């Protein structure tokens, strides 16, 4: 066995490597000064972070020149367009989260380099997860990103809700990792000792009961990571206790990287009709429960948590369609939807971060009259909420349209119907904050600490991107289609 590393292998791991180094540099840059100035904004950390994320993003394009480089690191990872798109979502999300982190954490008196460094480390492992092609690398990547996120969830360690949410998240997360790992062991056993996804797809152990049980257990592990019913109970508690910026980061990046990986996994292993039906059931329940539970939430964070659960449900629809025989073409809506969801959600959490700078506001009525005080933030939040609800001219609309029209074309009318009903329900709770912002008088005590340029910039740019993806979706749809074709080919 030869132990050389080819140029393609170095290029494949370059974004993740840059991100990990960025995290280390952030930690070192903050050495010796973290104790005193936890109230300062520490712009240098954001600068290091932004530089690192931009470099990593550029590295994606360096890779992007050729077609898929095939199996790298003895089949542990690959370097195809699909993986790069996943890494792209993660890197952009990390960039904006880093931009927002400084002023928000400083206002809470707990700004230290660990937070931004954890974003960078987490982003590195998420980029690897999007490119991972064997069971070992998938497991290691998913665990590394989870560990980073557990710590971020409990970042405000003096607050009960934070520690409680983080611990709940940790126990349930580790519990589900146990099942994920057991499933991988079963697949490994059933396929006669293959860990690479291509070997698993080629092996003749697919009819084995052990293999089916293994796939099911892996699915449970992933369902937990993306917050699908019945493994969603941690989501609202964690969202409520964690720093707003960390919630935005988790909501997008963890979901995106896990879904990219799950999509790759399912396209390789197949799994058959039974699994597709199970996934369809999960999807239906997730959409309905997420939307119905969001109706009554007064806390914006909890509302976003249930809305995130509902969006997970929509994202499972293309996987069901892909599993039922249509193959890769329906999965093409996943990368597009993730980009749209990332832009939309980051804009929304930017506004949530802006209103909780200075004080921890997250109730719907805290938004009363926001449009009069801060029209830009109100506009950004409105665009984000309309996009989440799937109103035309926004990215969210195109994403939902792709998913639902594909489901209808392939004959999954019930799934599409549930998706539409879910969207209709969601309009109610997404419009409540909008009404609050534009049509209510501000309370007399309403004082808003000026948001930092980082937060304002994020809201503006992500809101703009939401509209852009909605008006000019063609190039991104085309890219998504090509990326999914690249998985198997």
């Amino acid at each position: 066995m030869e132990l050389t590393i080819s140029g393609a292998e170095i290029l494949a791991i370059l974004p993740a490597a840059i991100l990990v180094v960025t995290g280390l540099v952030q930690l070192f840059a903050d050495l010796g000064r973290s104790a005193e100035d936890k109230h300062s904004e520490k712009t240098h950390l954001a600068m290091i972070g932004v530089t690192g994320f931009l470099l990593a993003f550029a590295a994606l394009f360096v890779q992007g020149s050729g077609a898929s480089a095939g199996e790298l690191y003895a089949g542990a990872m690959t370097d195809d367009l699909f993986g790069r798109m996943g890494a792209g979502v993660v890197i952009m999300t990390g960039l904006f989260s880093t931009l927002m982190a400084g002023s928000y954490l400083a206002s809470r008196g707990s700004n230290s380099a660990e937070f931004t460094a954890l974003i960078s480390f987490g982003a590195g492992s998420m980029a690897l997860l999007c490119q991972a092609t064997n069971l070992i690398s998938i497991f290691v990547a998913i665990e590394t990103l989870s560990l980073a996120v557990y710590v971020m969830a409990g970042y405000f360690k003096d607050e009960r809700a934070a520690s409680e949410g983080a611990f709940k998240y940790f126990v349930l997360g580790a519990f589900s990792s146990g099942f994920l790992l057991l499933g991988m062991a079963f697949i490994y056993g059933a396929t006669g000792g293959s860990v690479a996804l291509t070997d698993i797809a080629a092996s003749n152990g697919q009819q084995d009961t052990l293999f089916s049980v293994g796939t099911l257990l892996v699915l449970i592990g992933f369902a937990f990571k993306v917050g699908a019913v019945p493994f969603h109970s941690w989501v609202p508690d964690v969202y409520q206790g964690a720093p707003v910026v960390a919630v935005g980061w988790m909501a997008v990046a963890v979901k995106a990287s896990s879904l990219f990986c799950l999509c790759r996994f399912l396209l390789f292993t197949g799994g058959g009709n039974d699994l597709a039906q199970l996934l369809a059931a999960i999807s239906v329940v997730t959409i309905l429960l997420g939307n119905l539970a969001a109706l009554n939430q007064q806390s914006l964070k909890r509302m976003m948590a249930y809305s995130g659960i509902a969006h997970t449900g929509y994202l499972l629809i293309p996987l069901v369609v892909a599993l039922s025989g249509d193959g890769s073409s329906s999965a093409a809506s996943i990368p597009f939807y993730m980009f749209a969801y990332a832009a939309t959600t980051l804009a929304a959490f930017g506004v949530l971060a802006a209103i909780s700078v200075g004080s921890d506001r997250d109730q719907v009525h805290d938004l009363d009259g926001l449009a009069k005080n801060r029209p830009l933030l109100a506009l950004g939040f409105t665009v984000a909420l309309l996009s989440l609800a799937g109103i035309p001219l926004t990215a969210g609309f195109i994403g939902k349209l792709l998913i639902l029209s594909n489901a209808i074309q392939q004959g999954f009318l019930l799934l599409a119907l549930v998706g539409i009903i879910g969207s209709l329900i969601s309009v109610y709770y997404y419009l409540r904050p909008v009404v609050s912002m534009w049509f209510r008088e501000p309370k007399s005590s309403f004082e808003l600490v000026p948001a930092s340029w980082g937060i304002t910039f994020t809201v503006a740019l992500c809101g703009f991107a939401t509209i852009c993806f909605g008006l000019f979706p063609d190039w991104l749809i085309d890219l998504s289609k090509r990326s999914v074709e690249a998985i198997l080919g």
Partner: protein
Amino acid sequence: MFSLPALLYLSAFLFSVGTYGVLARRNILVVLMSLELMLNAVNIALVSFGRVHALTAFAGEHSGQIFTLMVLAVAAAEAAIGLSLLLVIWRRWNTIDLRQLCRLNG
């Protein structure tokens, strides 16, 4: 030497014990130990599968053993995070009882 089914039964037994511990026990420390037990139960399954496959179809192929080494490293990191969360909770609220911790609802 043990046969593959015997080793798998052992693994399944340990995994069940771990699952029971996570679900039923209320002491955080015991929950953390049960989580480790679950991961290590899978490790037994992985090395037993790995040994069988190395003897038969894929001579010289040791993915199962390598997988186990990776899982050990991950489990150690996980234990570190779990114990530090435990310390935070203990220092702040002087309890390691999950019942007293569960006050969020929704």
